């Protein structure tokens, strides 16, 4: 946590103009990513995690507007305000879920990877040579020959590797990942996660990894930020969030995930569904589904604050008015 901040997001809100009623699916999100750190942004569909990432990358959908401050500190300097759309490809790179739609089908893999280098003024021959090198680095066998292949000639896993190579071609310091392994099979997913982790280590990249899968985040990131209904409700070190969640939503999410160990027992699931972004309720947005909800949860707005209770470690913050109740019963049972 004491590293140098590369990305600082302050009070980010994103609004979408849908018909006559604009909605604000992301509200007051603040986030810091340090140099060489991977942070996992987790949540279920519609929580605003992808939209947050797209705001950082300057890829908001048509009619989308953002407020708040984004700052970037790439070359050892103090983070400075930046224009998201202009920094993409210059320090910031992004990889997407569906490589078949994210890669231009009319360009050969090698040209796709070389293009960002050509844009930066590198000569054609040098760019092409570098593209082949990058393809080999991301584990594409027979790179020199495969550089001539079209995107549709690659399998899903290799296509994702091509996309990663194209992202790395811009020499990014910050890599934004939007569910890059969700469409892949377990074994290929494992290989791609391993590749991202390896590139992060070697290049000291900062990574923001958006996913719905807590187990994937557990594998890839040092810190987790959990989103619910457009807000970050909990953030802290990965191991601690998984073992000692400090927000009822995170706890419920962990209990919902089936795993190899807990067999036959019932999964808890979460009753009800997330609130409609057209009409977020007053007070805590999770209150209606929360087993710990108190009367004041429906009136007071919880803020993301450090957890004071002794069970929780440093840097662990939660937006819950009654965080001391979360998991307290279990802790007592163990004691």
């Amino acid at each position, binding site marked *: 946590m004491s590293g140098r901040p590369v990305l600082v997001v302050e009070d980010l809100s994103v609004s979408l103009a849908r018909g006559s009623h604009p909605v604000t699916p992301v509200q007051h999100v603040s986030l810091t990513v340090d140099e060489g750190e991977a942070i996992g942004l987790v949540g279920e569909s519609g929580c605003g995690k992808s939209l947050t990432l797209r705001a950082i990358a300057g890829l908001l959908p048509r009619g989308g507007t953002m407020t708040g401050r984004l700052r970037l500190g790439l070359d050892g300097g103090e983070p400075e305000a930046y224009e998201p759309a202009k920094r993409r490809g210059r320090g910031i790179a992004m990889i997407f879920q569906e490589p078949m739609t994210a890669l231009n089908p009319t360009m050969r893999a090698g040209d796709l990877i070389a293009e960002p280098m050509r844009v930066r003024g590198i000569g054609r021959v040098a760019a092409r040579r570098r593209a082949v090198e990058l393809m080999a680095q991301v584990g594409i066998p027979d790179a020199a020959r495969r550089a001539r292949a079209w995107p549709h000639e690659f399998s899903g896993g290799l296509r994702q590797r091509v996309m990663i190579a194209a992202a790395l071609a811009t020499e990014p310091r910050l890599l934004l990942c939007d569910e890059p392994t969700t469409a892949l099979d377990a074994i290929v997913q494992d290989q791609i996660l391993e590749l991202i982790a390896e590139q992060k280590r070697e290049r000291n990249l900062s990574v923001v990894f958006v996913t719905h899968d807590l187990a994937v985040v557990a594998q890839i990131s040092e810190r987790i930020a959990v989103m619910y209904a457009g807000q970050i409700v909990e953030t802290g070190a990965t191991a601690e969030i998984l073992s000692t969640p400090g927000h009822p939503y995170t706890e419920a999410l962990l209990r919902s995930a*089936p795993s*190899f160990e807990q067999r036959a027992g019932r999964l808890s699931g979460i009753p009800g569904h997330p609130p409609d972004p057209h009409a977020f309720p007053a007070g805590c947005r999770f209150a209606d589904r929360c087993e710990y909800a108190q009367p004041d949860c429906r009136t007071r707005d919880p803020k993301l604050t450090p957890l004071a209770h002794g069970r929780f470690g440093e840097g662990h913050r939660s937006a819950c008015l009654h965080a001391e109740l979360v998991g307290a019963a279990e802790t007592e049972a163990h004691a």
Partner: protein
Amino acid sequence: MSGGVELRGAVVRFPLESALSARLQRRERLRVTAMDGVDLTVRPGESLGIVGESGCGKSTLARVLVGLVPLSSGTLSINGQAVGLKRSRPMRRHIQMVFQDPSSSLNPARTIEQILSELLRAHELVPSGRVKGRCHELLELVHLPRSVLAVKPRQLSGGQRQRVGIARALALEPEVLVADEAVAALDVSVQATILNLFSDLRRQLGLTLIFISHDLSVVRHISDELAVMYLGRIVEEGSADAIFSEPRHPYTRALIAASPQLYESKGSGASALLGEPPSPIHLPRGCRFAPRCPIREDRCEQEDPQLAGEPDHRAACFFQNLVVAGAPRPVSTSTEVR
């Protein structure tokens, strides 16, 4: 005995081109082999999970069971009676399917009441005066309020829609329920409630449940028996406990190692597998896993291993008894373990 399913030597091939184009080029028609000699016995009341990566043939298997895809060769029998693609109405009632995507498998133009009552009427399951009452019972089974009868699928959430999909499958009072990736499109919190529903229904109605998924954790949770498929074959089968505690096929081991787990820091055992599955159009000659296998021998590239082992745990690998974590590479001279 009811709810038993048996497949013998089941093969499914899909043509990749028209017969004419193959004839003009004077060669055999190109076909993809989706299922290549699958034997499967599901006992009544059993909960069987089928896992594998995309393209391994697990969905084709599901479709064969419910009669949506014809077998190219082999036999399928349900309750001891051979069945094919054409099934009588009473025959179709025995086995029903829940699909992955409830938004595309429910007619968007119809209300939930129309969707459910149409089936009840067509199969003459209840007297016409009782249809609405039966709809209410079905909704109760899947924990939906009666008010959803009046709405159309798009007005429901993903989880609710999947509950309607399950209610529709249950309307015919099947003995066997086939669920093909039935929770894959749902968020974890919703997925958990649907998995619970499947377990409850199985106990309550004594269903035989065949649950197909790419997600090992999900299958681990819901199934007692397990079959692992790879490129159109079952490569390992047995009790889920036995397979998870002591996987014998190198593919199963890789699959387990590659599945992300919340509380286990894992090594990169799975990444040892090179590349991705070969094309099901041109299958390798010997063991079809050999090109990716970390412990392959010359023999694996020549001979095709068959399922072998004890009745409650079998694997199709020549070296299944040597496939233990950290074990040294088997030596060719001492490997007659057939």
